[in-house]
């Protein structure tokens, strides 16, 4: 419990520092959202619109940054993330809630899958060293060194087409409204296959490798030999003893990688026209949309922290040594 509170205090501090940075950094970008908008619509938006846009966005008054900062925290505590500029006047919270599910579904599920598959293969590769699994590593390493976007674009080029099973992009078939029904779900899954595969291929090798290394390390522990000496079935030794223990250090790595979901894979979302939050962030960057950037950073920060906190808790359950008596 003490451990837990200590962690919480630590996380709160980190969150404060990160959010503060998140507040200031976007403000350092030269230019402003109005300019960005005008530029985005090259010639389609008359320069006369500039004044009305400044009024519209409410950035005509030159507030000082400090009072904005205070205001920002006040708003944050009120649960208000402000209005997005790029999607003016949609509230940031709405932009986020529209896109986060897509990301969670695609990248979140894939990250978990990647972890599960990678860990599984890693267990195999570590346990059965010297068998065919040794060939797994060089191949996956090569793929993991390929940039996501490159792989994705090639996949689109090679695998999609008018008659292909794989759609070339988008989150689901045009016109389907997100709902748990027999139309949307299969379509969403179909659309997520190719991007998911891309992420999977380029991220799985990290897990294989780390799990394999941990398996190798753990396999030479005495208790594994004891387990063999006890005459336990091989499965039991491999999974209940070796893999179970080798998994522990990977848990926090996994938690951290959850944080990379949003920031790390937005190129996949761009390449596949996937309406997720990473793509949204990219647009926010292009549009100088501070409120949206802040909102997304907030989500990233909080999700990393929560993931880590969860990892700590999971760790507490997985590793009795961290549990304190009494």
């Amino acid at each position, binding site marked *: 419990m003490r451990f837990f509170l200590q962690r919480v205090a630590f996380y709160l501090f980190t969150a404060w520092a990160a959010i503060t940075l998140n507040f200031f950094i976007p403000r350092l970008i030269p230019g402003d959202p109005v300019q960005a908008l005008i530029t985005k619509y090259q010639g389609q938006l008359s320069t006369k619109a500039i004044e009305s846009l400044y009024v519209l966005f409410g950035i005509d008054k030159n507030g000082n940054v400090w009072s904005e900062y205070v205001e920002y925290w006040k708003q944050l505590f009120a649960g208000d993330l402000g209005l997005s500029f790029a999607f003016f006047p949609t509230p940031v919270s709405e932009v986020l809630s529209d896109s986060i599910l897509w990301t969670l579904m695609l990248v979140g599920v894939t990250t978990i899958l990647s972890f599960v598959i990678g860990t599984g293969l890693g267990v195999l590769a570590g346990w059965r060293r010297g068998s065919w699994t040794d060939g797994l590593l060089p191949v996956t390493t090569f793929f993991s060194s390929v940039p996501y976007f490159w792989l994705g674009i090639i996949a689109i080029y090679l695998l999609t087409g008018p008659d292909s099973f794989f759609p070339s992009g988008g989150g689901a078939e045009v016109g389907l409204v997100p709902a748990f029904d027999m139309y949307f779900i299969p379509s969403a899954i179909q659309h997520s296959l190719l991007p998911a595969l891309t992420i999977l291929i380029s991220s799985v090798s990290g897990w294989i490798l780390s799990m394999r290394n941990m398996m190798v390390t753990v*396999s*030479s*522990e*005495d*208790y594994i*030999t*004891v*387990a*063999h*000496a*006890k*005459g*336990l*079935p091989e499965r*039991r030794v491999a999974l*209940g*003893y070796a893999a*179970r*223990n080798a998994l*522990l250090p990977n848990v926090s790595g996994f938690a951290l990688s959850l944080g990379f979901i949003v920031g790390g894979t937005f190129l996949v979302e761009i390449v596949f026209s996937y309406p997720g939050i990473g793509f949204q962030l990219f647009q926010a960057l292009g549009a100088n949309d501070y409120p949206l950037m802040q909102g997304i950073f907030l989500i990233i920060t909080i999700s990393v922290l929560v993931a880590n906190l969860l990892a700590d808790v999971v760790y507490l359950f*997985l*590793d*009795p*040594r961290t*549990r304190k*008596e009494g």
Partner: protein
Amino acid sequence: MSAPVLEIKNLNVGYGLGDQGVRAVRDVNLTLHRGEVLGLAGESGSGKSTLAYGLTRLLAPPGVVTGGQVIYHPAEGEPYDVLGLSDERLRKFRWAETAIVFQGAMNSLNPVHKISVQLTDVLRAHEPKMSETSRLARAREMLKLVGIAADRMDAYPHQLSGGMRQRVMIGMALILQPQVVIMDEPTTALDVVMQRQILGQLIELRERLGFSVIFITHDLSLLVEFSDRIAIMYGGRIVEEAPAAAIYRDALHPYSKGLLGSFPALRGPRRELTGIPGSPPDLKGMPSGCSFHPRCPKAFDPCAGNIPVLGRPGTGDGRTRSVACWLHPTEEPVG
């Protein structure tokens, strides 16, 4: 002397093969009799652990058993060679017939499983028909046997002290009532007080349950006190084997003598400590002939040329002991 349970015949164990390989155990012949405590002594690196793990095929890569037999005599039925068993049969054999207590109990217990799980695991693997409640009952019974309250069943290894963990390991070793228990330095990490208690308990259990023990340590004085017979290893070979008292009083091999002369005695008059000059041999470049001869104060011509075989010496108690030394001509080789 009672019937043998385990006969080790010309066991050879090495690490790696080819010119990278080392032969850590060389042509070892040893017989363990029913109900006895056989002590195995020798300095660090002499191959004691390698022998223990080799005979149960538990050596991790790059360990290989390069030759020999380990004949096990079950309580009923024909004797068989442990090294020739299939993986499945070996799994069945392990723990049910021969259990091992490792050097560090800290590392022998899986830190993430409760000790009850680790105890019942064995039963689940070897006696699948047993019900869960009777497994737990059996586990509790074993803990009681080694002096641990049954309420510690649900403890994790790190919640137990070193001594308790070692007791748990001993309890676990006995849970299937094996014929042979191998103990590789079971108490070196422990305090003398604890060490005495645990060994005392073990000896008492042996009396009750009647298993045989191979007891490995480099602390000769401990061995002399606790074991029936003692085998001394040097450079991968057994150089002497005799009843404990015989070794203590009258060691034949110069190495055994040196080993005994290295321990200061706590009681009685101050003995002269001789020690053993020089350093242990390098397994890769073993001296020719008797591997001890470069350090041996009594070495003479034949020592450097030929390897002496373990055999019965021509002394009065020659029936009960054997030695491999050119100073002690044998009447008949062992093995």
